[in-house]
């Protein structure tokens, strides 16, 4: 899922300071799962923002909505009927959702209520961890199912580097060395000799962010 976390409430308050009528839009997908932008978070943030305004002796009208997804036009269009009655849309979806709001409602400012962080999964209740950077050329079959792009701070393809010590990364002693994980895993799989001795060629990063914004067109699905 895409993992995000709430912006500091002071930052959100500053963002909406000049508005008195806003839409607060959550999303029922990834950000709901990581407890940052679902229906519950919409209610909590709306209440907190109204409370802050009352403290300052001002009113704030908030229309609370939680869309099925904010990354699909049909759902984003769901607020078309009343969007024009509001001065801004505060989206607590991921960055995709905020941008979709901006693209669909051109005369209404779209504001981000979250900081979108990474693609990852949950380790336990309340703990999420990054696993994928969407580099566009997956090589997990060669690295024991552990991603060097994500798990190595330098995204090395022929690691580990000299900063690896006792299985930890030099960036932070709490972070595991991605390449140590790969080596251990390859050994467990009995693939160490076959895989690790083979050098990875220079990676073509054009399928990643270096190639600019990426778009996929599936002609079999496109209408």
């Amino acid at each position, binding site marked *: 899922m895409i993992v995000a976390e709430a912006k500091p409430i002071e930052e959100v308050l500053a963002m909406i300071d000049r508005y008195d009528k806003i839409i607060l839009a959550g999303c029922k997908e990834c950000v709901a799962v990581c407890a940052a932008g679902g229906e519950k978070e919409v209610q909590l943030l709306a209440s907190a923002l109204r409370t802050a305004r009352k*403290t300052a002796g001002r009113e704030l009208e908030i229309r609370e909505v939680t869309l099925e997804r904010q990354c699909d036009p049909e759902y984003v269009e769901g607020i078309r009927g009343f969007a024009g009655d509001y001065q801004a849309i505060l989206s607590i979806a991921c960055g995709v959702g905020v941008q979709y709001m901006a693209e669909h409602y051109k005369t209404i400012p779209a504001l981000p209520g979250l900081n979108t962080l990474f693609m990852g999964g949950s380790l336990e209740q309340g703990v999420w961890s990054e696993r994928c950077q969407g580099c566009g050329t997956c090589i997990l079959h060669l690295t024991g199912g552990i991603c060097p792009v994500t798990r190595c701070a330098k995204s090395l393809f022929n690691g580990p580097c000299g900063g690896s010590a006792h299985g930890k990364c030099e960036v932070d002693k709490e972070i595991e060395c991605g390449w140590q994980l790969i080596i251990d895993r390859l050994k467990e799989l009995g693939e160490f000799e076959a895989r690790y001795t083979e050098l990875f060629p220079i990676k073509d990063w054009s399928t990643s962010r270096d190639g600019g914004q990426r778009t996929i067109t599936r002609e079999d699905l496109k209408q």
Partner: protein
Amino acid sequence: MHLMKAFEEGMDGVYVAGCLEGECHFLRGNLRAKKRVGHVQGILAALGINPERLQMYNLSAAMGGRFAQIAREMTERVRALGPSPVTTGKGREFVEEEQEEKGQ
């Protein structure tokens, strides 16, 4: 959510009464509630509302005396703090320590 709503509606103080730790019917329900209360206290502080206005107590259903004592304690605490800034509309009543340090 219910805690935040109470403050939004202008309550001067709220306390949560949970079971004694380790004796919750919902096993870890009271420990989870304690964490939620801490989270809302953080939100209140960020909004400029004294987090002391929200408290959590642990007691059993058989502790009537303790319940009365807590109610008195909470009433005194809230009385000392005065009306909630939500109802007075006079701005923040509380500045977080970190912000105070930055300001110094």
